[in-house]
């Protein structure tokens, strides 16, 4: 199998201004944050983001002016509140949100992955979400049953994924944990796939647990080793979310100056991922998060 291993900087070059970017994320969980910071540092503009539930990644991208649209179910940092910059972006009209129910987002991505023009759902019927969305339309059942909501195929330009281990060919493995839909379907729907991984291992390590491999290397374009690459989100079972950094962001988000200082400290400032880890507390902090001392 071909070798896909590369650096964060090289991998980020697979994302262009204006791209639609499917981002693994679930409130406070499992976002490929190192790759998100790299995109911000490289100054990407006019990105469209696709998430099930967007969290701090989306708020940073919004605060840094990298995004102008979002397709997804919700944006929230759960216990750390709403993503204020994302929210203001939408309220000011700078960011356009295509709001979908979960089955509708999965149908749009599922159709994209399967090269089908649409997939149906029975969710959302009766809501205001259908009429305002040109990618959704009511469709009669050709067999005379109840009508469905047809959800138009969505093919993101690129998917960003973080995993527990991968080999240098891009075969992607997860430890037993919650498998969110972004892992199962986004990378198959997207034109390009960038994987960051806690660890690059020899392929023979994957053969020990072939049932834990969730993506074959041939769908992956780049794989980068980034330990703690989901920080400050959690990456179960390895480490918990960093509550302190989430709270610091939620506090900074109220003032433009504080936002600039925060992004300088944690996104623009650190020369590389190691410098970032030092800035957020280094080995000691990571060890605490590995014990799920998240507070």
């Amino acid at each position, binding site marked *: 199998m071909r070798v896909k291993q590369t650096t964060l900087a090289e991998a980020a070059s697979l994302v262009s201004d204006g791209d639609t970017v499917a981002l693994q994320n679930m409130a406070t969980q499992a976002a490929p944050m190192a790759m998100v910071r790299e995109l911000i540092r490289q100054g990407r503009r006019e990105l469209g983001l696709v998430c099930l539930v967007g969290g701090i990644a989306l708020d940073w991208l919004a605060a840094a002016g990298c995004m102008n649209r979002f397709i997804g*179910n919700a944006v929230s940092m*759960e216990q750390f509140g709403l993503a204020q910059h994302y929210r203001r972006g*939408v309220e000011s009209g700078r960011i356009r949100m295509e709001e979908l*129910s979960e089955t509708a987002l999965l149908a749009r991505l599922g159709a994209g992955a399967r090269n089908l023009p649409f997939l149906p*759902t029975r*969710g959302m019927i009766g809501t205001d979400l259908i009429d305002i969305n040109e990618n959704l339309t009511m469709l009669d059942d050709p067999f005379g049953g109840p*009508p469905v909501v047809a959800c138009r195929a969505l093919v993101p330009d690129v998917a960003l994924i973080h995993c527990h281990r991968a080999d240098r060919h891009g075969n992607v493995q997860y430890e037993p944990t919650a498998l969110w839909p972004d892992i199962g379907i986004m990378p198959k729907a997207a034109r390009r796939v960038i994987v960051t991984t806690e660890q690059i291992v020899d392929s023979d390590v994957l053969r020990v647990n072939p049932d834990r491999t969730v993506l074959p290397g041939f769908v992956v374009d780049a794989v980068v080793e980034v330990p703690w690459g989901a920080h400050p989100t959690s990456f179960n079972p390895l480490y918990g979310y960093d509550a302190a950094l989430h709270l610091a962001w939620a506090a900074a988000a109220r003032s433009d100056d504080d936002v600039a200082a925060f992004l300088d400290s944690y996104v623009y400032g650190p020369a590389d991922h190691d410098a970032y880890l030092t800035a957020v507390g280094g080995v000691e902090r990571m060890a605490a998060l590995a014990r799920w001392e998240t507070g």
Partner: protein
Amino acid sequence: MAPDPHLDSPPAGDWTVDELMIAVLASCFEDGDQACNGMASFLPVAALQLAKLTHAPDLVWLAGAVGLEPRPGPIPASTLEAPLWRDALMYVEQYGDFWTLALNGRWLQKFCVGAAQLDRFGNANNSVIGGDFHAPKVRLPGTAGLADMGSLGKQLYYWNPNHNPRSLVETVDFVSCAGYLGGGDERERLGLTGGPELVVTNLCVMDFEPDSKHMRLRSVHPDVTLEQVLDATGYEPVLPPGGVPVTPKPTAEQVRLIREVIDPHGMRHREFRRR
């Protein structure tokens, strides 16, 4: 809310409204039901655990819609993070498994919903308030699975720890979750079954008048007056004939279970601080 022998322990002398709300929500679940919970859902999670510990031992809980029947333990700081579903019997994959089970219609038929806005017909809004959809006055988090659950024949149980005229409104600004729509048989005419069953707030319990589908006051919490409820509600709920009952207090045993076993760290209070 059928009478339940397990609840026939003496009412608590010392109780708070969060505990009362948990007890009411717990009574909505029957033995053998299945239920999941979403983000920031401390009251529903506590209610599911309370039901399991009292009248519904065979209630099946899908923690965070991920972990099947985790080992009981104190509610952690998040209802959508791994500590909630530690030592589960199954990790339910979300794309193929969870939504297939939820769409099917035979399982996961009851769902607790938190909504920023709720109107007299049980329509809910977690999307936008005011202005245009694409430049709203307030952008809410988004509908997520709620827009599905409202249309899939589920019985919906709304909870609201901060009953006020801004959250209980005449008409929602945007329907992100289908309740009874314009009322009457409008929901039925769209081919939708199920629908809102109950609304549990910090002031009262409401259900829906069977024909009109107007929200109806079912009981007012102890120490709350009818006037307080009406003042805090953005529409006039239907009043039951013959006076409004008082919501039963949680029992002493329920309060003990909530405080000592289910939520010793008091995570449930976050729901009240949040708003």
